[in-house]
C-alpha cells in the first residue's frame, strides 16, 4: 500500500513538463502545511527534549537549555519499556505475517477466478477498520476477562492455573497488537500476491522443486515488496502503540510500553522534556530500522 506506492513511483513518471512554476503553485500549500505541522513540531520536540526546569518554577515550567541529562534520565528510568516496545512489536509483526500470508495468498491467488468472493473477503479483511480501534481492543478484554469463556475453558483443561489471568499479561498485549494490525499486513501482501504470475510457480514445479522449495525460492521473493510494506506498516504503529498495553485495555503496569511512558510524562506528569526525549529515541530507532531494512531488502527507491 502506502510504502509500495512510493517505491513504484519511478515507473509511473510521465514526460517532464517545462512550466515548473505551476508545480510550485501546486506543491506550495501542501508542502508548507507539512513543514509547519510536521517538520516544525519535530524540531520543537528536539528542543523540548533538551529543556531544563525553571528554578523555583511550577510543575510543567521549563526553559530552553541543553540538558543531555534528560536522555540519560529517560533511558535510565524507562529502558525496560523501550526494549519491551520493540520486543512486543517484533513478535506481533512476525505473528501477523504468519497469520496474514496464507489469507493474502488465498484471496490474491486462489480466489482470483472468483471476483465476487475476492471482493467479499477483502471487505471482511478491512471490516475491523470500520469499528473503533479502542472498542475492538476492549471487546477482546471482555472476551479474555477472568469470567469470560476463554479463561474458564483454559482453566478447565488446566493450561492456565486456577489463579491465572489472560488480561494484563504480555500474552494479551501481544495478542491485541497482532489482532489490531493484521489488516495492515494483509492488504499490502494481497496487493503484491494478486499480481503474482502463477506460471513461475508451475515452472518451479516442472523443474522438480518441492512445493516448499517453490514457495521459498519463487513465491516469497516475488512477494517481497508486500512483505516489506506489510511488516513496516505493522511494526511502526505497534512499537508506538499504548492502547493495547494500557491498564484499562489489555495490559497492566508490568506490560507498559514506551508510548505509555510518553503519554504519562506529557499529559499527566507534565514532564515534557522526558516525554520528548523518549519520543526522539523511539523515532530515531524506528528510522534506523526502516533505513537498514529497506536497504537490506533492496528497495532503495522507497522515497
Amino acid at each position, binding site marked *: *500500500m502506502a510504502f509500495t*506506492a*512510493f517505491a513504484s513511483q519511478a515507473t509511473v513518471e*510521465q*514526460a*517532464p*513538463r517545462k512550466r*515548473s512554476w505551476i*508545480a*510550485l503553485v*501546486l*506543491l506550495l*500549500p*501542501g*508542502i508548507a*502545511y*507539512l513543514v509547519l*505541522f510536521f517538520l*516544525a*513540531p*519535530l524540531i*520543537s*520536540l528536539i*528542543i*523540548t527534549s533538551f529543556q531544563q526546569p525553571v528554578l523555583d518554577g511550577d510543575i510543567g515550567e521549563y526553559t530552553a537549555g541543553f540538558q543531555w541529562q534528560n536522555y540519560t534520565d529517560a533511558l535510565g528510568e524507562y529502558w525496560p519499556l523501550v526494549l519491551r516496545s520493540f520486543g512486543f512489536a517484533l513478535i506481533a509483526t512476525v505473528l501477523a505475517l504468519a497469520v496474514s500470508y*496464507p*489469507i493474502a495468498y*488465498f484471496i490474491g491467488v*486462489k480466489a482470483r477466478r472468483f471476483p465476487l468472493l475476492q471482493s467479499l473477503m477483502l*471487505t471482511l*479483511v478491512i*471490516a*475491523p477498520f*470500520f469499528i*473503533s480501534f*479502542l*472498542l*475492538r481492543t*476492549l*471487546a*477482546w478484554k471482555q*472476551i479474555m476477562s477472568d469470567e469470560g469463556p476463554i479463561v474458564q475453558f483454559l482453566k478447565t483443561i488446566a493450561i492456565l492455573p486456577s489463579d491465572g489471568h489472560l488480561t494484563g499479561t504480555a500474552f494479551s498485549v501481544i495478542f491485541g497488537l497482532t*489482532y489490531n494490525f493484521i489488516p495492515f499486513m494483509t492488504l499490502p501482501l494481497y496487493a503484491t500476491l494478486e499480481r503474482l504470475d502463477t506460471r513461475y510457480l508451475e515452472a518451479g514445479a516442472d523443474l522438480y522443486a518441492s*512445493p516448499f522449495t517453490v514457495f521459498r525460492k519463487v513465491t516469497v521473493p516475488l512477494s517481497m515488496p508486500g512483505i516489506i510494506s506489510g511488516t*513496516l506498516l505493522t511494526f511502526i*504503529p505497534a*512499537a*508506538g*502503540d*499504548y*492502547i493495547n498495553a494500557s491498564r484499562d*485495555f489489555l495490559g497492566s503496569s508490568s506490560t507498559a510500553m*514506551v508510548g505509555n511512558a*510518553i503519554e504519562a510524562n*506529557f499529559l499527566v506528569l507534565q514532564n*515534557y522534556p522526558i*516525554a520528548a526525549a523518549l*519520543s526522539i529515541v*523511539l523515532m530515531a530507532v*524506528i528510522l534506523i530500522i526502516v533505513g537498514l531494512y529497506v536497504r537490506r531488502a533492496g528497495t532503495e527507491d522507497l522515497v
Partner: protein
Amino acid sequence: MKFGKGLGLGIYTVLALLFLLIPIAYTFVFSFNDAGKLNIAWQGFTFDKWLTVCSTAGLCEAFGNSILVGLVSTVLATALGTLIAIALVRYRFRARSSISLLLFLPMATPEVVLGAGLAAQFLTLGTEKGLLTIILAHTMFCISFVVVTVKARVASLDPALEEAGRDLYGSPGQVFWRITFPLLMPGIAAAALLSFALSFDDFIITNFNSGSVDTFPKFIYIAAARGIPAQVNVIASAVFLLAIVLVIVVQVSRAARAKRLARQLG
C-alpha cells in the same frame, strides 16, 4: 491446480476472517444488552440503548466533534494532497527527493511521536488546545495518504485527453475542471474516504492535542476506566453498518460497470 491444498487454505482463510470479526460481533451484540452502567455481563435483550443513544452525557457531543473534525480535515487534506499528487506525477522539479521524503516521513513516524511533537509546538506557541488543534493535527497526517492514493490515479490518466481539450481551445481552468478533475474523481473520492476513516478513528494524536474537547475515540478511552455504556456500542455498530453498506454499494456498482463495459466491448 491441486484442489485439496486450495481447500485447506480456503478453510483457514474463512476461519481467520471469522476470527477478525469476533470483536465486531461482540460490540454489536452488546449494544442490545439490558445492562446498567457497566456493560460487561449479559443481562438480557433490549432495544432501549439504540433509542436512548444521546442520554449518556457527552457521548453525542463527542460523536458530533468526531464527524466535524473528520469532515473539515478530510476536505483540507484531500485538497492539499491532490495538488501535490498532480505536481509529483506531471512535473519535474528540483528538490523532488526531499519532497518525497517529507511526504513519506509522517507515515513512518509513530503516532505518539506525531502527537507529542504537535503538542510540544502548541505548548511553545501558547496555542490553546481544542477543535482547531485537532483539525490541524488530523489534516497533517492525512495528507501523505491522500498523495499516495491520488498519485496512482494521476499516473494512470492519459495526458492525450487533456491535450485534446487544449487543442479545442479550452482554457487551463476549463481543461482542469471539465477533463482532469472528473477523471481523477474516483481516486480523490477514495482518498477522501480514507482520510475520513483515519481521522474518525484516530485516538493517539487526538489525545495529545485536544485539551478538554472530546472526540468519539477519546470518549471511549476515558470511559474505559469506569466501564463503557452500551450506547457507545450502539454508535459504533451504526457507524460500522453504514460503512459496510457503503463499501458493498461501491463494489457492486463497480462490478456492474465492469460487466456492462465487458458486454459493450464483447
